């Protein structure tokens, strides 16, 4: 086995195993962590496919932001112990059999007869000065400038949606108002009282 093959099968093993653990996990936080492992394996596969930029993006954006967002929501809502397990453990074997049949069928469609090395030979290794990011950037800002703008629109929607949905208007919120703080005068806060000399109620606190 070549080193590429060893890597491929290692990553594939981790990918399949962690996805399986993820879908059967009872604890949502555990599921997220195994999904993270799955994404790391996917990123490894993508590097084998010479898509370095996307592999790194997957780790930075997906694992770094999206998966953490998942964990954040799970912990915030305190729902990591799933109370609801769908009641059809009885259907599970049937489901798995159906899934296995689907995989077998897809394997036939996607097998070596259609996509083997004799039809799609492995491309030559990229040279040392090859830069994946440069190539993607050149395309993104020229041929794909329209989709690029649309992606900006999508992110705008995400911002508007998140604010419109979960931002609560101020209710009894204790916040600083700088201008008020600055404009405060001594007489607003401080009252000078003259204390009688023989006042015995001195508070020692």
């Amino acid at each position: 086995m070549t080193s590429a093959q060893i890597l491929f099968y290692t990553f594939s093993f981790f990918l399949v195993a962690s996805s399986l653990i993820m879908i059967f996990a009872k604890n949502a936080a555990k599921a997220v962590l195994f999904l993270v492992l799955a994404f790391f394996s996917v990123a490894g596969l993508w590097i084998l496919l010479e898509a370095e930029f996307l592999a790194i993006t997957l780790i930075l954006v997906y694992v770094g932001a999206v998966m953490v967002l998942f964990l954040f929501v799970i912990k915030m809502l305190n729902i990591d112990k799933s109370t609801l397990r769908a009641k059809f453990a009885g259907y599970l074997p049937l489901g798995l059999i159906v899934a296995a049949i689907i995989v077998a069928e897809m394997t036939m469609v996607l097998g070596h007869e259609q996509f083997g090395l004799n039809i799609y030979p492995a491309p030559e290794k990229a040279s040392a000065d090859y830069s994946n990011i440069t190539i993607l950037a050149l395309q993104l800002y020229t041929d794909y400038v329209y989709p690029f703008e649309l992606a900006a629109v999508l992110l705008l929607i995400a911002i508007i949606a998140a604010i419109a949905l979960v931002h609560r208007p101020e209710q009894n919120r204790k916040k600083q108002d700088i201008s008020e703080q600055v404009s405060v005068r001594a007489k607003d806060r401080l009252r000078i009282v003259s204390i009688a000399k023989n006042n015995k109620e001195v508070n020692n606190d």
Partner: protein
Amino acid sequence: MSNTAQNLFQFDTSTLVFALPEIFLLSSIVVILLIDVFLKKSFKNITYYLSQIAIFITALLSYSLIGNGEQIIFSGSFIHDDLAAIFKVAMMVASIVVLVYSRTYLNIHNLFKGEYFVLVLLAILGMMVMVSGYSLLTLYLGLEILSLSLYTLIAIARSRANAVEAGLKYFVLGAIASGLLLYGMSMIYGINGSLNISEIAQFASGASLQSSQQLILNFGLVFIVIGVAFKLGAVPFHNWVPDVYQGSPTSVTMFLSSVPKIAAVAMLIRLLIEGLGSLQDYWSDLFIALAILSIGVGSLVALMQSNIKRMLAYSTISHIGFILLGFATGTMTGYGSAVFYVFTYVLMSIAAFGVVILLNNKGFESELISDFKGLSKRSPWFALMMLIIMLSMAGIPPFIGFYSKFFILQQVVNSGFIELAIIAVIFAVISAYYYLQIIKSMYFDESDNTSPISSSMDTQLVLSINAVLILAVGLFPNYWMNIALSVF
């Protein structure tokens, strides 16, 4: 190729004129969003009027571009043709009407927020992108812009548990549907190496296509059809439709039952007719199954509904069945009659929800069919409108709903599927029952509630025009049919 891309890339800014409607709409969205932030709560009307003006100008811009032939810009990811321009104008007009009907409802139900209008505008932008999408990428992005805006619009009634649940359900099923659609797209891309619809079409109709390549194309096609059927709400992928229709605020239901269907049909045309038209034999079979199931389930299950929004949801499903039947014929006239059908469906659906929303303007959500009892006494004029709408939906001449069904069935018979036409007619007759039931309860049932229906002038006027159009277009169906045919 990457090193040469630098030198080869040329961008003629004068071609941007064909994307002017989109550019204008996006700029006005940003401006409206900014203005809205600085508006006091009592001036939110300004956001409403600005949105209406923005949509109107976009419609004018799209209209002015009709007749420029086929223009493909942005390196093949954007197309301008008459189909795009006509669809855009239709979507804009429908959106303006929807917003007019929604205004009172939004005010009463405390939804009259700037974000609401901005999200509607963004949804419209997404639909325009879908209509003009000429690569798998832009079609997908348009679809997602539309979907994400819709999920948010549904859940924007934050304190209503039903609305939020509907939003969540739509979100999850929509995300799964996108996943399936993408899987199909990845196969289509993988076998021909391009995302552009024109190159896919060239590849798929090529004479040198090997049988293994054909196999992969079909494999991808199945996933794409499933994804599109999900988005259209065809049986057996219709599960979300009734729940989402029922749970959403009625103004959102009205929007999502009408305008996005036009965009979905446009996407279907781009993907399956312009892109994979040479596989028409394969997807026709799938469409026939989807169509018959949709017509059947839609007509039968609607009979059992007591909630008007659920009933209209199942009625939508059966209308979608007719649209798919039109596409399944595989002839130009068949496609044209499907396009005609979707326009007439939108006209009727908006009007029907317009009446439902009128009944809602009293501060409580009226959702039951029994709320229509005695409407003829409470408001004879609106009862008459509803009568026209229901008769048209049931497919009774001389209303427009009859002609749209008639054109479809004519094409189905011409294509030799006589038994399909017979099945469709039987279910159409069954479905007439529940439309007539509403008419019966409006005119023959007594209601304890005899308060007259109040509404604003603009709603009354537009609703009347809308209902009259259902009759008027029905008098000259061929004129409109020719417009629908001209887009191909």
